[in-house]
């Protein structure tokens, strides 16, 4: 585990994830107190990545459970392998009749079968799903429960036993207690409010969009091939876009995609045509594209004016800038 908050930051940085002190503190606490983390925030700020990087940083396996509407215990925890059970009964028919030979009457036969039924309801026929896998793993793991807000409220209630005691109960076999307490990360996009009971058991981490410096640092790390100047321009644009009232604000991943795309096209400066052509890498709705174009037109005009000034009279212009 981690020995200090600084170590969290370092090890995350080694995995190319820039963790602010706030994030690092929460991660450190979660590891020290053995508590799940509930990560909330807008889409595309690295909520899921946090879990992945955590697993890499600790050298643990990552077990991921993607939530969706209608997700039930069968998909999340365990399931009996009915098909396998049926198959085995078919194959073992002879053995079963052997067991039954000499039984007097139906009652005796049922008793004899009953004696054997542990065979069929044993761990052999349990099909472990992510949650049970995380509990029964020999090595410590990081369990990522992604987009928990998409799952039903009942599922959330069902998670409570797991999150507070790190154990799950299978009625036919008994209770599985975690051999290694897994580190649990839950992410939510706030499609609906989580129940208080769930929130109470978790450390809460709200990740917001990064500020300019942080975002630049992230780009430098994730897309080192991008020119500094271009990265700066892109970040300025994206930051200003986030201030607009968009249906979906561009996340960090979109910024990185855009920088990569622009670098691939060998672009030095943002200009009008180029922006229009590549805008759909960062803005995903038709209405948003229109709003963003308005904003960008303004930005590109200003940027060009600035560049024009510099190119025309390099020395005096920069002096003037200083004076202003």
């Amino acid at each position, binding site marked *: 585990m981690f020995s200090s*908050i600084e170590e969290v930051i370092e090890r995350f940085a080694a995995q190319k994830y820039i963790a602010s*002190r*706030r994030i690092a*503190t*929460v991660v*450190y*606490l979660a590891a*020290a*107190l053995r*508590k799940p*983390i*509930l990560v*909330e*925030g807008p889409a595309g700020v690295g909520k899921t990545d946090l879990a992945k990087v955590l697993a890499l940083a600790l050298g643990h396996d990552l077990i991921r459970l993607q939530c969706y509407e209608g997700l039930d215990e069968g998909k999340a925890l365990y399931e009996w392998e*009915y*098909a396998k059970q*049926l198959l085995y009964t078919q194959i073992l028919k002879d053995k079963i009749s052997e067991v039954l030979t000499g039984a007097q009457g139906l009652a005796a036969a049922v008793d004899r079968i009953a004696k054997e039924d542990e065979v069929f309801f044993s761990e052999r026929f349990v099909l472990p799903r992510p949650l049970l896998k995380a509990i029964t793993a020999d090595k410590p793991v990081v369990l990522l429960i992604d987009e928990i807000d998409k799952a*039903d*409220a*009942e599922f959330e209630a069902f998670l409570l036993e797991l999150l507070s005691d790190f154990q799950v109960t299978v009625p036919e076999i008994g209770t599985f207690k975690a051999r290694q307490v897994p580190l649990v990360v839950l992410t939510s996009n*706030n*499609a*609906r*409010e*989580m129940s*208080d009971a769930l*929130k*109470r058991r*978790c*450390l*809460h*981490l*709200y990740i917001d969009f990064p500020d300019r410096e942080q975002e630049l640092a992230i780009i430098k790390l994730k897309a080192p091939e991008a020119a500094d100047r271009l990265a700066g321009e892109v970040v300025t644009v994206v930051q200003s876009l986030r201030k607009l009232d968009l249906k979906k604000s561009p996340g960090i991943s979109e910024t990185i995609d855009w920088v990569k795309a622009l670098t691939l096209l060998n672009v030095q400066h943002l200009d009008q045509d180029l922006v229009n052509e590549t805008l759909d890498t960062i803005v995903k709705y038709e209405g948003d594209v229109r709003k963003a174009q308005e904003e960008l037109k303004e930005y590109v005009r200003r940027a060009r004016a600035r560049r024009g000034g510099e190119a025309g009279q390099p020395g005096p212009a920069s002096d003037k800038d200083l004076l202003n």
Partner: protein
Amino acid sequence: MDDKLVEFANLLRQNGVRVSLAETLDALAASGVTGLLDRESFRAALRATMVKRASELPVFEELFEVYFSGLGEIIKQAGQGVQEALSMSDQEFQKFLDQVEEMLKQQGEKLSELARELLQNRSGQLEKRLREAARAVRLQGIERTIEENYFARALARALGLDKLEQEIRELREQIQTLDYGNALKAQLEKYLDRRLKALEDIIRRYVRMEREKRDLRAREEQRLHQLSDKSFYYLSDEELERMKEAVTRLAQRLKNALAVRRKHAKKGRFDIKRTLRHNLEYGGVPFKLRFEKRRREKPQVVILCDVSDSVRNASRFMLQFVYSLQDLYSRVRSFVFVSDIGEVTEHFRGNDIKEALDIALKGDVINVYAHSDFGRAFRNFVGDHIGAVNKRTTVIVLGDARNNYNLPHDWCLREIRQRARRIIWLNPESRNTWGFGDSEMERYAPHCDLVEECRNLNQLYRVVDHLVAR
């Protein structure tokens, strides 16, 4: 520390953040892990354990600043103030403090603890002492500005400021007898004076800070109460602005609540086809049963809003509310009237809610400066727009039913009732006044399925909740 955290949790609760006992315990455990030395980590630890809603983060940040930086920061600033007054650099000041300590060792054997802490700049102990004294005089009970002086005096007495003054005076005299250089003597005297002043300053600022802390709480509480219980009619411009936010928040809350409620809706009938298909892998033995999903019918809504002067605010929030929740209905059509009636549905489709509201209320569609005439408006509605109403439509009328003694034409409402699923009438006037003067409420009420008073945000919320819940 435990006490402080519990008190902080209380403060959070009083400001509307829900902090359970278990979470306070978590906060304790977490602060034990991070330690108290690094402020940012401590803050992050509390934040992660005590605040579980993004919307409550600003409250937390504000309170944390006030609560935790408070006294320590004040003492630190006072210390810096002394250093500045002596115009020394950090190093010089440190050296000077060493000298002071040396002197105290020689001279101050009978000095009180307080004097030692103050003069040797032991801010941690001083802070603790101040807090104890504050508890003794019940400083947390302070509420008004005029109490500041009283509490400052009480705190000074509890600390033993009189004795301290005495001690410092004696110390000054002793310094004169020592064989230090004159410059150093002067500096020492100045230091003593400054220190005493600084403590007085600290006390004053501490008391004020405590008062502000309570104030913050009171203000916040008041604001929420007032807003949701205040009649729409009396809102000031600034309150109107805040109310708009409040409506948006309430709408979001309602949406969340409904999302959960929807999920709990009962399952439908047994679905044979899907059951068979899903159980093919088990040789057709029905291990897993499948049910039809019962689809909840979304209500269709037609809103008739009176936008005459007397009820315009209520209409504004009604419209805003309904349109913020648009995806809960299959169809919303809205009409505004004073004496003419006009449809504003289109404006809401193309525009932002805010712009649409302005268009609807500012008289672009109908003349909003006429005298209310419900009868005429209803007759026109039946004549021109009755097609908007069908068996699945809920008709909501929002108005005070003050008809200026015109013909009420209540038969129009009956006509609408016969075609609609139900009619809900919301009246922004207090129930006691219905039926008096030119109010035709009594005449209209029999044709409505539900007549509700709707004067403030709480009532509005209940009505809309009722509307979508079924």
